[in-house]
């Protein structure tokens, strides 16, 4: 008898919240990406939990694709961070604030 699904769901929700808070609070672009990974992992955990609850493989297939896309996203994102860092020598996103009213 496994642990009820709702426990894992709560865990995933808390993980998501922690990741969101970090995303909003940290200034370094790299740390923000890591928080983004936390949030994605929370989502993956939710999918897998539901896959187990509904006894369906589709949830796991979704996680598979989320991981692929996350990988691609990190690749491109870090490429952007590198390109920006070359100009400004700082990874703080607060410095990228020229598109303002």
């Amino acid at each position, binding site marked *: 008898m496994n642990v009820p699904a709702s426990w894992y769901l709560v865990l995933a929700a808390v993980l998501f919240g922690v990741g969101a808070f970090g*995303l*909003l*609070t940290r*200034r370094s672009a790299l740390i923000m990406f890591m928080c983004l990974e936390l949030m994605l992992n929370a989502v993956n955990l939710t999918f897998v939990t539901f896959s187990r609850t509904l006894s369906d493989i589709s949830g796991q297939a979704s996680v598979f694709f989320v991981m692929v896309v996350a990988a691609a996203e990190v690749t491109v994102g870090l490429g952007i961070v590198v390109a920006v860092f070359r100009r400004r020598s700082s990874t703080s*996103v607060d410095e*990228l*604030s020229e598109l*303002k*009213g």
Partner: protein
Amino acid sequence: MAHVATLILLMPLVGFFAVVMNGAGLKERFVGVIATGAVAVSFVLSVVALVLLLHHSNREITVRLFDWIPVGTLHVPAALLVDPLSITMCLFVTGVSALIHLYSIGYMRGEKDFRKFFLYLNLFVFSMLLLVLANNLPLTFVGWEGVGACSYWLVSYYFTRDSAASAGKKAFLYNRVGDVGLLLAMFLIFGHAHTLTYLNVFHVAGTLSPTVATLTVLALLLGATGKSAQIPLFNWLPDAMEGPTPVSALIHAATMVTAGVYLLVRMSPVLTMSPDGRATIAIIGGATAFVAATIATAQKDIKKVLAFSTVSQIGYMVLAVGVGAYSAAIFLMVAHAFYKALLFLGAGSVIHSLNGEQDLRKMGGLQKYLPLTFPTFLVAWLSISGIPPFSGFFAKGDVLTKVFEHNKPLWVLGVLTAILTAYYMSRLFVLTFRGTERFREVTKGHDPHESPWVMTLPLVVLAVLSVLGGLLNLPWAHSSSLAGFLDPTFGFVPAVATSSTVALWGLALVDVVAAVLGLLAAFSIWRGVSESPRFESSFFEHVWHWDDFYDDVIGRPLTRAAQYSDDVIEPKVLDGAVTGVAVATRRSAEGLRKVQSGFVRQYALAMVLGVAVIIVYLVAKVH
């Protein structure tokens, strides 16, 4: 009959277009002939129409031209009403107009804008005919406004002169105030009778409540005082003497100023329903007649004397309307048209001979230099003073008799006014034609010359009419008189005179005595002198300070209010509101702009807060 009536109306308009279309190169002579000819043809057709009407059993012929305003329950056709009243008006309007057109050919010779003068004159006759021939109030109003506009144009004919330009504006503005009255009357009538055609209104006039009838009558009276220069809107007429003398003769003596009286007479069934309204009309008429007569005694300009005289005589007509003597009012109107036009044209002849001089102090002794103007002027003078057997005696006598029958105090006022009338007209006559010659410096030593035939022929014709005019309405031949012709229109059964023969002779005697008194007074005071401060009161000369009163009470405060509007309200309130909207938009935009801070983390925060709101909503919905 339909064609005749339509042509009567349209001939002057044809004349107008003929002169307009032919361009500025048309010779003076042709312009004059075309214009005069058009009006003369109208006159001839009016006579034809009269004959046709007399032979018609039903003396109310409606000629429909087309449907003008069909809106909901309001149906206003463009239609003409040919009945004794309108034919009478047509006859003397076209007749006198034709004579004045002829006169103008000579008077305006050599003027720069000769063509323009005749254009306006023809347009005026068209508007006046429209006014009298219309069978409903709105069409009458069109003619009403038309004559007002032509009056403005013609008074400001010498518009390069400041006084002429402002006189034109004054005339138009006073008319406009009166027009409000006519419009209000139209609204009231439509509201209660649901029709604006005269014949239909007369059928339902009996159902009007006294309050409504009185209000309507007062509104009509306001319109009439504006157009016919009565108290309180009479100040424009003396100023309108700035226009050329033929204009004064036609518009401000014979035709336009009678339009107000015509309107009141036309609406007689409504007047019948309101004794209070009629009383007001009578008081206004009597008061105006008296006040204007006093003012005329102190004027020094020949045309101003005649202008105030016109105001006074129309006061008599309005007084007659007020006591219900509609036929008497029309009779006086016709007779007045003859002798007042004659007086003005004669004055024009005098002015013409003295190279434009109008001041009475610089005239005198012209009797032997103007062999045709003098006798015709004499006839007119005797007529207006009320000396028998000229037309004025019969016309004014008719009015005073009817006033005596209804309202003794006003009759006394009327007799006093008659004395004054005889006095100031005799003063005018003496100062102009008798006494010493004071004009030598104006004519530079030459003798004044008589006017050409185009000017003297109308004088002679009008003189004959002034003499014979009394025959139109002799008191003892009622059925074949003007009154007998007109009374059915007013719903009166032609009846014998209501006063006894003794009373009639007594009143006639009083009239003659009054006239002779005024004459003798004038001759004795004004023999040998040209100025007499004791008898030329400055209070009378300054129109009882009426103009100054209007200026202080209405003119100046309104100008100040307008100035205030321009200085304060316009920039601060109106402009402020408009620019205020723009400024408010800009400020709010500037405020909202700060939301775009450029910080990605703040945008992300906004997203998270939005998600929080949605979650809260879902939780609330589930529970």
